[in-house]
């Protein structure tokens, strides 16, 4: 079974530029997550999709970050314009069917991440 795919793996941009990250979840997984992980910290959830609908985007800086999952499969996260403090690893994860109490359905599987450096 293929895992969560992300691209690019690395990106270096100047501040105020735009950048986009792509994620393809595990086939059949209804839920997709984007996390931001700053060096030395644990991942922080930015946005959660259930199929093509947003479940939680409470921690997404909406003035500069946007995300979409139009067909309920792959997803794109965009930053426009980027700031120095956006330098981090952006992780995508997917799960089969969360919302149940325990069990295999809510286990999140993470991709390798995209390391963003903003200069």
């Amino acid at each position, binding site marked *: 079974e293929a895992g969560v795919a992300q691209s690019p793996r690395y990106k270096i941009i100047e501040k105020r530029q735009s950048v986009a990250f792509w994620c393809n979840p595990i086939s059949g997984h209804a839920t997709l997550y984007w996390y931001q992980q700053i060096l030395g910290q644990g991942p922080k959830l930015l946005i959660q999709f259930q199929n093509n609908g947003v479940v939680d985007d409470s921690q997404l800086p909406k003035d500069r970050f946007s995300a979409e999952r139009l067909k309920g499969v792959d997803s794109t996260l965009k930053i426009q314009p980027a700031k120095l403090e956006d330098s981090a690893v952006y992780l995508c994860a997917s799960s089969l069917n969360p919302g149940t*109490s325990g069990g295999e359905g*809510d286990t999140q599987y993470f991709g390798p991440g995209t390391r963003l450096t903003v200069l």
Partner: protein
Amino acid sequence: LAKTTQPISMDSYEGQEVNITCSHNNIATNDYITWYQQFPSQGPRFIIQGYKTKVTNEVASLFIPADRKSSTLSLPRVSLSDTAVYYCLVTQWEYGNKLVFGAGTILRVKS
């Protein structure tokens, strides 16, 4: 959302058993404990999940006492490749099973 507390770092030697304890005082009845492992330049990887008593899989064991205010991840006979960051999370069904990561525990295994 429930918060967890775990040691910042631990050191061990190859072949030893490692126990990482996590405290989670305000865990609710429907919540369960989940542990993830993260290597450098990789995304976190699910290790084990449990609700109460003991859970064991091919990688680790998870011990949860009756009061569920803490839990212990046990890694038997660690090797150098077990050097990683380990995250303890309370998965809360009430909040859509959202994962809230802390700083985790850096485990260093030495030869």
